């Protein structure tokens, strides 16, 4: 289940007139980068204060021991530097983010930086494979649907897409597990088991269900947006002209329509990729996939807030980065916007 309502962002307005095309570009890029950095900094404030200032970390860590052993409360408070003012702790932590000194996990005492490295790689692989599978599937469905507009095929595809879009991703995942590995068929592994620190893709079979779940969660949104931009293009004058010239419908669809539907496509794919960075939380937990999401759930449960802070910042950074890239790409792909910046 993803966030369709957050419509693709339009790139920040370009400066109207400037000296050369190159400098105008650089100015736009600098402004956009500045915004990304500002967003990330505000994110860090939000992450830090949500985890460290609300609630009582010590009470959450110790649970029932909180009331019975005041000396442990005191040692833990000193160890986590909770006796220092909030601002000092925030600045220390922010400095740590830049120098790579991320503190130690509360659950097992190991350095956070050592624990999250593999996890980030694993999640990135999962998300990228899902995206590589999802993009052609979504565009293909959109093409079929737009081509058969108003016919029965289109109607059926639309209904299926709305139903799939409504299902939360863990519901999709569990239904797939029941279908393919436990209750109906027994053909695919239900959990990711990669022993001895081997990467999960060393057993490709166990990647199938997590990837399928993410594809089903995301593809409906992408295909619906691409379909509606395809329909818009198909109604335009230049497509009509191409048809009148006698260009076959197949080529009209592929060359005239699809290429022009790519820009809105990029925006929605970026949004969905960014969503995947967080959407993997439930899916990774469901399949015990050793990634950022499953680790985040465990850390939240253990009140391991140094871990939670770093994992949350990672997810936010992915989001901000992907959006930045999408904005730059859509400017590059839109001649109109390109000239607006350059002129």
């Amino acid at each position, binding site marked *: 289940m993803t966030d369709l309502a957050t419509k693709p962002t339009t790139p920040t307005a370009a400066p109207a007139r400037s000296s050369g095309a190159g400098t105008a570009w650089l100015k736009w890029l600098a402004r956009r980068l500045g915004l990304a950095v500002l967003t990330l900094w505000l994110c860090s404030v939000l992450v830090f204060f*949500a985890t460290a200032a*609300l609630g009582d970390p010590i009470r959450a860590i110790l649970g029932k021991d909180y009331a019975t052993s005041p000396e442990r409360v005191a040692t833990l408070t000193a160890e986590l530097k909770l006796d220092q003012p909030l601002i000092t702790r925030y600045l220390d932590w922010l400095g740590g983010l830049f120098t790579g000194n991320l503190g130690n996990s509360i659950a097992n005492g190991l350095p956070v930086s050592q624990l999250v490295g593999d996890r980030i790689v694993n999640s990135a692989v999962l998300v990228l494979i899902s995206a590589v599978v999802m993009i052609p599937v979504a565009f293909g469905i959109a093409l079929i649907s737009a081509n058969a507009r108003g016919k029965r095929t289109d109607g059926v595809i639309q209904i299926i897409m*709305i139903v799939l879009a409504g299902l939360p991703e863990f519901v999709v995942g569990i239904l797939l597990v029941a279908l393919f590995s436990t*209750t109906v068929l027994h053909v695919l592994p239900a959990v990711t088991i990669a022993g001895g620190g081997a990467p999960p893709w060393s057993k490709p079979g166990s990647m199938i269900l997590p990837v399928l779940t993410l594809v089903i969660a995301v593809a409906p949104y992408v295909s619906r947006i691409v379909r509606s931009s395809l329909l818009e293009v198909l109604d335009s004058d230049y497509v009509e002209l191409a048809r009148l010239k006698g260009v076959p419908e197949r080529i009209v669809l592929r060359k005239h329509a699809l290429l022009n539907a790519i820009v809105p496509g990029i925006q929605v794919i970026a949004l969905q990729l960014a969503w995947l960075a967080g959407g993997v939380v439930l899916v990774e937990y469901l399949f015990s996939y050793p990634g950022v999401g499953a680790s985040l759930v465990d850390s939240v449960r253990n009140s391991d807030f140094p871990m939670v802070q770093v994992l949350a910042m990672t997810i936010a950074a992915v989001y901000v980065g992907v959006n930045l890239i999408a904005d730059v790409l859509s400017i590059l792909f839109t001649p109109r916007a390109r000239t607006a910046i350059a002129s």
Partner: protein
Amino acid sequence: MTAPVALRRIGSQPRLLTGLVITVVVALVAIVGPWLAPYGENDIVGKPFTHEGSWLGTDYLGQDVWSRVLCGGGSILVISVLATALGMIVGVMIGVVAAYAGGWLDEAVMRLNDVALAFPQILLALLVLTAVDQPSWWMIVLLVGFSHAPRVARLARGVALGIVSRDYVTSAEALGESRLRVIMAEVLPNMNAPLLAEAGLRLTYSIGIVAGLGFLGFATNPGAADWGVMINENRLALLVQPWGVLAPVIIIGLFTVGTNLMADGIAQLAGRGD
């Protein structure tokens, strides 16, 4: 719009009608279910994960799955509806004020909004739950509601921007009406349709997030029946007693599909300009 006209419009939109029927049925199950349940939600009716009890067998403690499905919808329903209402109210307020005020206030509000949008909704809830020992239900309402607000605000601002420049708003201002009154009497009533569709969509997401938190094991009321938590409790026995997991999964799925169809139907009605 009078009641018969409204009914006819709903009837002319099959998606809206189907969605409405599914949603109402699931909501009814959640509301009256506890009275229909053959056993109490915590009654032990047999051995764990067997076919004892009523038709869906027993769960991890030997409690009756069917009874727990009937009893376990109330919390999700209430929390999701309240969170959606909170998110809509806060979001619409922020969006409309930003659009109406314009200038630096608009810019500042929307920048802060971007920050909030950089967090997947469930992440915000997880962040705060890190430092909380036992989440209470109102905490989930607040977290889910506030995670909706920036998303609603972005939409509301977009819709409101198209309205604040209209002539009737300018003339209301020229008549000397207060800003609050202009917003309440001129701007908001003209945003009904898109906001209603957005509310349907937000409800879909609320149900997904609230049930998802239960599925991750963050129970607001340990021991009580809850569709999301049930999945987590019975997950290990998916192979031997699938109904302990499948029954809550299917009903959560039905619920979100219903609300999503409803939201889509409203959006189509609004798009046609009725």
